[in-house]
């Protein structure tokens, strides 16, 4: 019994640095600017005007939508590309397979700061600057989706070999086997991929800053840095209000679907 109490105590203490910043972010966004530096745990004066100002200062609704639809498209696209590539690398023996896999894996090693300038020039030549295309196409086909392919491959490797034979007996070709048999089984792994990918796209910061120049096109992380006064000084409570609006919906969805989130991650076959 005492052991349990100690465990709970330890967990509670450890929890603080994880929870306190989010708590503080939400409560401070509801304080008037004069109270922001007071470090009260709960606002002494409840001032929700910063939430209104968020929408006044930026086309925040549009930006929210931008982030949302980009993340959704990237997630769906990545799931498709990664599932296909992951299956092929795992279950089909084709010449050059290992070499090609290594070529693809190279994408995991490169930070985006390294490739951003050539990519910017590429898209500029195509006239696609200040559109969302770079933010959609590159994550789906390029470096960010490689992790997803890796995860899918790991998962497909764990399927029993008899799977393909059984499918062939049923008259399915290779593609049919993939689409009708392997893919439905991959739900947990796909779930994990969906989560990783969505979060990655949702939080992208450098890329929107480089590619997008009109506030209408901005995504949320980019918009967060725009809440400054006329001289560039941050408007803390407005920034935090915007940050809260960015974080809270995800947190709520997470709390409701927690089991699927975490179980999906756990069953990716990454355990080895």
């Amino acid at each position, binding site marked *: 019994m005492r052991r349990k109490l100690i465990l709970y105590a330890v967990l509670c203490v450890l929890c603080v640095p994880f929870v306190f910043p989010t708590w503080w972010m939400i409560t401070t966004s509801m304080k008037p600017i004069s109270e922001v*530096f007071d470090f009260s745990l709960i606002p002494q004066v409840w001032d929700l005007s910063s939430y209104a100002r968020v929408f006044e200062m930026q086309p925040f609704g549009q930006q929210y939508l931008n982030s949302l639809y980009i993340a959704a498209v990237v997630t*769906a696209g990545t799931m498709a590309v990664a599932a296909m590539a992951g299956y092929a690398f795992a279950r089909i023996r084709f010449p050059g397979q290992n070499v090609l896999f290594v070529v693809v894996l190279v994408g995991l090693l490169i930070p985006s700061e390294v490739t951003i300038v050539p990519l910017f020039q590429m898209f500029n030549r195509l006239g696609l600057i200040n*559109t969302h295309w770079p933010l*959609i196409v590159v994550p789906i086909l390029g470096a960010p989706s490689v992790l997803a392919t890796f995860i899918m491959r790991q998962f497909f490797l764990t399927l029993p070999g008899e799977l393909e034979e059984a499918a062939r007996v049923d008259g399915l070709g290779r593609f049919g086997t993939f689409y009708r048999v392997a*893919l*439905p089984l991959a739900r947990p792994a796909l779930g994990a991929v969906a989560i990783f990918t969505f979060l990655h796209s949702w939080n992208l910061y450098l890329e929107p800053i480089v590619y997008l120049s009109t506030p*209408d096109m901005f995504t949320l992380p980019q918009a967060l840095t725009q809440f400054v006064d*006329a*001289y560039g000084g941050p408007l803390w409570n407005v920034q935090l209000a915007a940050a809260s609006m960015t974080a809270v919906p995800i947190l709520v969805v997470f709390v409701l679907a927690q089991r699927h989130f975490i179980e999906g991650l756990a069953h990716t076959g990454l355990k080895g």
Partner: protein
Amino acid sequence: MRALIPAVALLTLAAACGSGAEQTAQSGPATLRMSIWTANEDHLKLFNEIAAGYTKAKVTFESIPIDSYTTTLTTQIAGGKAPDLAWILEGSAPDFVESGALAPLSSKIQNAAELAPAATRLWQKDGELYAYPFSTSPFGVFVNTDLLREAGKKVPAKGWTWQEAMDAAAAVAKKGKAGLIVGDWDYKNWTNLATLWEGWGAKAWSEDGATCGFNQPPMVEAMTFLHKSIFTDKALPGPGETVDFYSGDAAMIVTQISRASLLKDATFDWTLLPLPHGPAGEYSVIGQAGIGVIKKSPNAELAADFLGYFTNAENSAKLAQYFPPARTSQLNVETLAKSNPLLKPEQLQAVVIDGIPNGVVKPSHKGQEELIQTARAALDPLWQPGADVKAVLDGVCTKIQPLLGS
């Protein structure tokens, strides 16, 4: 699962239509893009109003956040997506003017002769003007007179010295509030310290930019004074402490007069004074911003023409609402008072009108950003209580001398 692939196709199509719609913008008259660093609604309203009167092109203003402004602008130029016109910070002026990236403007500016020489020096090369100094903003000191009175200090007047300023600041700090703030410095952006060290005749580097000035006697004296004021007299807030003068939490702030608008709803009594005198006497420091035309732009000719319109006498007077003009005919109390309703005529005279003709611009140099960062890193050891001022400043020169030579 089955609907996956058709769904992806559909979504991508929708996305394409969605972002495509944003793009079917301009066909018809030519369009010009000017990048700016303010996102202030009032500023934008004014710009759009002025631009509306220009019939030869449609002009859009693109706001880039100021802390990454030059970097973003340069990235755009590197990527081939440069704007037609761009605001330029005084610190980046040498880089832009020297590099040949800007188009010559002298012939396009209306009545260029009336621009104050002190204001145009930075933006000229070989007698040709490469950017128009649309904002020349002298530094002054806003003083919270309530706090001074509470601390038992007399409100200073024009002609005051740095020693007096620090004494008053220290007295207020003893009472619990903060003393003097060097605006926008925050122990990082050291070019703002020029507002202090010019009083000792110190310079970051020589006139020709080739020799390091940090370890010269005037600078050593100035920095020693500053160090003592921070760590011994506690007249300034320490590193990392965030204090807001405009909420009434500090005695004084050294900043540009444009910040007066932040005092619109001030809950305390305040005044504006010119910079204090240092041991080397009276001086004034100015910050500037220029607008240039990017030479590589396909619309450079048109852009230069627009710039001439944007900065002609009439529009310059309108811009003077927020940005002190370089046109000497408009540097008088009447014009300035209209646009700075919160400042009294004698304040405008003392700080702005008297400040601009002899004002020294904040330090600038070719390869500005690298110099600033390198010096900043080298100055960091200075902001500790027991620092050896001379040793640190020697270190700064060691680090930046190679960069100055180029």
